[in-house]
């Protein structure tokens, strides 16, 4: 549930206009030619002056898909030409970041063109924060859709002329299942695996892993084994328990191979097994040394332990011959 303060702070900015961002260069043939080359665009109306002269445009125009290119800052971030605003049209995202919504993904780019842009024209744009959605839950995570509209103009002595608009929508969110969110527009340190929440009921299991032991909870009243760990015996409701070390011999009860979405830092495809220990309880663990085509329900497995990020040891299961 979003902090009401966050939404009211963010909504207070809706409708705000941000100042001009100018183009470094006028619309020019070399940049158009390089863009057409890499895109595979071979329309001569962008590159062949003689052909363009005979068209309805009566001269070269810029590819419509280049509208945003002219006002990009280039190699150095936020290095805009003199006269450009130093306001940040994305300031609303900073408010969300302060509340833990750290990840950003672009969702929509909608260009509308008032008229073609011609060689030699000098462009600029202004930005308006169009809307901030209510908090939405998506497959990626929970957050807000933020929509900005950039209005592009060509400078004219007789009065600047609108040439087109960009509606740009991003989703600013908390990832659904990652503790260290992967922020798309920055370079964070390599994410580590999320750590388990450890309680008095589960501590023995993780400490066992550290020592290379696969420990299973056992009711000391009726000897029933249980996993995952819990405070009460499922058979006799006793609160008394100890642990036994499993042999690590097991069979594959079921499995899934994760392909997409790829969440760092895991490797993909990522095979996960529901594993039945020979002692009779099941647990979920990663599979190693497996070939997807060879995976078989019932296949024999043996536990081994791997340490990740120098801080977490997990049981993993490897196929062995029956």
């Amino acid at each position: 549930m979003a902090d009401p303060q966050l939404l009211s702070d963010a909504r207070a900015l809706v409708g705000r206009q941000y100042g001009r961002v100018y183009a470094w260069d006028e619309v020019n043939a070399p940049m158009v030619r390089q863009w057409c080359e890499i895109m595979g665009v071979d329309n001569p109306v962008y590159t062949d002056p003689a052909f363009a002269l005979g068209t309805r445009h009566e001269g070269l125009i810029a590819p419509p898909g280049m509208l945003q290119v002219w006002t990009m800052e280039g190699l150095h971030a936020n290095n805009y030409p003199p006269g450009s605003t130093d306001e940040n049209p994305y300031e609303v995202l900073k408010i969300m970041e302060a509340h833990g919504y750290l990840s950003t993904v672009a969702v929509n780019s909608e260009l509308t063109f008032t008229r073609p842009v011609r060689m030699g024209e000098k462009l600029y744009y202004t930005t308006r924060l169009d809307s901030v959605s209510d908090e939405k839950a998506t497959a990626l995570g929970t957050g807000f859709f933020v929509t900005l509209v950039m209005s592009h103009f060509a400078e004219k002595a007789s009065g600047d002329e609108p040439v087109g608009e960009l509606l740009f929508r991003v989703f600013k969110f908390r990832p659904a299942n990652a503790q260290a969110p992967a922020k798309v527009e920055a370079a964070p340190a390599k994410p580590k695996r999320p750590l388990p929440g450890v309680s008095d009921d589960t501590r023995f299991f993780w400490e066992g892993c550290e020592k290379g032991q696969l420990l299973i909870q056992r009711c000391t009243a009726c000897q029933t084994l249980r996993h995952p760990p819990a405070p009460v015996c499922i058979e006799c409701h006793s609160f008394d328990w100890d642990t036994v070390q499993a042999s690590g011999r097991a069979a594959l009860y079921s499995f899934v191979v994760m392909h997409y979405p790829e969440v760092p830092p895991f490797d993909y495809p990522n095979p996960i097994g529901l594993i039945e220990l020979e002692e009779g309880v099941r647990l979920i663990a990663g599979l190693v040394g497996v070939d997807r085509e060879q995976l078989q329900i019932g296949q024999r497995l043996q536990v081994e332990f791997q340490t990740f990020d120098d801080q977490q040891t997990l049981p993993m299961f490897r196929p062995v011959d029956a």
Partner: protein
Amino acid sequence: MTSKNTKRFEDVRPGEALPELAVPVTVTLINGGAIATRDYFPGHHDADAARALGSPHVFMNILTTNGLVQRFVEQWAGPEAVFRSLKIKLGAPNYPGDCMTFSGSVTQLDADTRTVEITLGGKNSMGNHVTGTVAVVLP
């Protein structure tokens, strides 16, 4: 190849399918597209930086996707089609080694303004990289 002849509005039928366009996604296309659109975000040209972000390799930037969408429609419509809008929704990333195949069809015709709307998708091995609509005015 864009034909030298622009389609006339009267020649377009509702539901008409555009010829498919398969675009091999290469490191060169992703790098070159990013730089030609003046987008120096490291994830588009530096494989190590992209991996540090959790991606398997460099990934295509939005402005290159826009360019390829323009190409797909323009190759069918011809050189004098005038773009009125290019609206896209982004999906699965484009990584090197994949191939994105565009398909699309005519979903709206407005005789008064001679405007044709095309609904399209660009699909790679993971699903739709891009879906959207493009409106062009034809002679």
